[in-house]
């Protein structure tokens, strides 16, 4: 693996060590885990009583209390959670756009998310979306030990997932790191990502070159993934039109994310790698400062 990639992973891991991955606010019903949560659950540890409400499990009715007070109450037990991070990284060529810091930022963010998850006793699994989605490394591997990371795929993420999707853990916290720059069906992908997930966070990493259109002139634009070329004369109008198209694209993904309750956070690669400051993720309540 490229030494730069390794360095980015280390930088991200160091940055993520200052944070904890924030667990999902709403624990799904019927879930069971290895840890007691802060909310009522189905563990054996009694926490409180409350009045019976239609729909409550009648096995939890405190019949003794009903005998004493003639009121139907149910026993509340501490929830039992098993937090897990499924991290999906887009391994397409566009993620290592030449002349940009996208690859370093993506790897660094992946490392940071794993480190932050570890700080909160999350287990994690790294899924790499190349021609298909495959798992990278073991459960307890540190990011710096990940092998086989390469941004050489020419297959869009949704197609890669369609070929061979990840085996997510149910109720896991899912994080997707991608630039989302392909003309796929954003809603379909989001639904698939959010299915059986405790929460879904989409971190969109864009290079400055992805956001800022080129200066005026004749350009031969080359698609980093397909190699297709198009020759354009770029002027102010073309630049404006590009910006409008990008805005519509972003709005599409935001709508798709909102539709499944996911959070879409857009970061600029060059800003990320400059200071490894992850405050934007803290503001978006993805991370917590330790």
């Amino acid at each position, binding site marked *: 693996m490229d030494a730069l990639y390794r360095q980015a992973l280390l930088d991200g891991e160091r940055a993520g060590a200052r944070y904890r991955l924030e667990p999902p606010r709403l624990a799904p019903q019927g879930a069971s885990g290895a840890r007691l949560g802060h909310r009522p659950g189905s563990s054996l540890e009694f926490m409180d009583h409350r009045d019976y409400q239609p729909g409550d499990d009648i096995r939890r009715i405190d019949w003794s209390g009903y005998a004493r007070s003639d009121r139907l109450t149910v026993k509340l037990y501490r929830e039992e959670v098993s937090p897990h991070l499924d991290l999906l990284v887009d391994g397409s060529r*566009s993620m290592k*756009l030449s002349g940009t810091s996208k690859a370093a930022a993506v790897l660094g963010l992946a490392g940071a998310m794993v480190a932050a998850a570890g700080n909160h006793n999350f287990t994690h699994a790294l899924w790499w979306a190349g021609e298909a989605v495959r798992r990278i490394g073991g459960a307890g591997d540190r990011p710096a030990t990940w092998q086989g990371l390469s941004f050489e795929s020419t297959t869009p993420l949704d197609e890669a997932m369609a070929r061979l999707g990840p085996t997510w853990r149910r109720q896991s916290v899912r994080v997707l790191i991608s630039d989302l720059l*392909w003309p796929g069906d954003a809603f379909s992908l989001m639904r698939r990502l959010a299915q059986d997930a405790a929460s879904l966070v989409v971190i969109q990493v864009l290079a400055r070159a992805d956001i800022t259109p080129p200066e005026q002139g004749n350009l031969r*634009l*080359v698609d*980093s993934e397909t190699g297709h070329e198009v020759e*354009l004369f770029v*002027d102010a109008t073309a630049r404006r039109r*590009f910006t409008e198209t990008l805005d519509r694209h972003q709005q599409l993904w935001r709508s798709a994310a909102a539709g499944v309750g996911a959070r879409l956070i857009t970061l600029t690669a060059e800003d990320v790698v400059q200071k490894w400051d992850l405050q934007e993720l803290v503001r978006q309540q993805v991370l917590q400062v330790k």
Partner: protein
Amino acid sequence: MPLLTLPLALFALVSLPALVAIYWLRNRLKRQEVSSLHLWMHQREAREGGQRVQKIQIPLLLLLELLALLLLVLAATDPRVLLGHEQRPLVVVLDDSYSMQAGARQQAADELRKTLAGESPLSVRLVLARQTPQTLSTTLTQMSQVDEALQNWTCHSPAADLGSAVALAFELAGPEGRVMVLTDHKPEGTLTTQEQEEHRLVWRALGQARPNVAIINAVRSSEAGQDRVLLEVANLSESPVQTQLTIQGSATPLSLNAGEVRRLWLQINDPAAVFNAQLADDALAIDNTVTLLPGIRQPVRLGLSIKHERLAMMLARAAQAQGASIVASSPDLIISDQESSQLSTPETWRVRWLVEEEPAAFIGPFLMDDHHPLTQGLDLQGVVWGAKQIETLPGRTVVAAGNTPLVSVQDRQGLRGPHYDITIRLNPDQSTIGATPAFPVLIWNLLGWRQSTLPGLDQVNVRLGSSTSFIPPRPTDTTVKPEPVQIIAPDGTSQSLAGEGHSMVITTQQAGVYQIVAQGRRFELTANALSPQESDLTKLTSETHGNWVTVSTLRRQYTSIAWMLLLGAMGVLGLHAFLSWRSAGGMR
């Protein structure tokens, strides 16, 4: 083919590659990799920008711009085409001197044909530059006529007065005419004429400097019954040469240093033999051969009928000294101190010598007709002339002492040819003329004058281009009309002249032996090419001086087509504007 009046404007053609460079730089595509092209694929086909680069249009517009630039540059050069119907008259001067035989003649003929091929319509006159210029043709309008006229361009003249020929050519050409000189040497300084400055004269020299050995002088003389020949052979080159001289069929080697002129005196044993000398072949053949005929001019037959003893002795001695033969009958000239003489015939010139008694002694001043043949070289200063003092003599007075005529000449009318009666009044006993050169001079002039009127050629050996007089013999019967004189040139061409018995001048135009036939008698005349200037081929050169094309002549003779090019450029620019407008969407 159009001519460019301002060819320097062609430098503006550098704008063409400049335009191409601008296009190339402007249209050069900068390669840029993007994460995904789909954000750029939704560019609508806007007119202002973001348009797909359409390469097919750029070369079309570029080509139109290049074409417009090219047309504008060509228009700036003010191109002109020849107006066929306004061709200026052309007169060509052809050097007819025999140095042209050393190769330049053929080249000049080719050059002439090449020049005339560009003349449309053809209109040319040809002038031969000889010792005196001569028109070779009237205005020729077809090449076949030119070729026919060129057959008479033989290049046998011993000299070419190109200055006079050019002057004649300009007279023939008129004020707007053009003159071309085809020769083998460069113009002399005096030929940098006004016409050349006015771009009316083109001097085309087509010669080539070559070494040449030539006979530049050949003289045959007779002395005491023995003929001698003086030959001068010149090596007209800058290096020594070995050649061969064949004299009377006998060849001898001849070595000449650079520029040397070898003088050879040769004895001819048979005075009646024809002398031939021949050099080995070299660059010019005409000057390698010399033929010298024997001098066969018959002496004057003199009849003397003089009773005065001293005068008879003086006349006999003078006549013998001058080769005259004293005859007793049918003399050509009779000198008599008698009133009448039995010797004379109708053809005889009669000199009546009056030896007057008791003469006066005249010591001068003597008045003489200096233009008369009898007074050539005659000097009577210091002479005492004895004659009676009278005031009139028959005929025209040639020599007089004051108002006293001493010698007179009377034309005898009614006879064919010149016949004179000469009267000389001189008493030798009372005169000192017998002791002075004046007396033999007077007799020499008398005999020479008579001899010059005898039938035959004045000279039989002349230089090429020279003239000699010929007096045809007269028929014995004076009532019979003389036959025409036939002159046969060395190349066999002949011409007949009605001489009527009078003297005629024959000018040699070819080297070789002329045959002259008159009254059944045959005379021979030889012309030898003996011109050192023409034989000297070292000065020949090949170069061109002058031209006919100037801005003023161009504008006068050629019409400008710049307006057509400007119109074309405007059309191209209009098409360019239309295509650009249509490319920009036209009317929205």
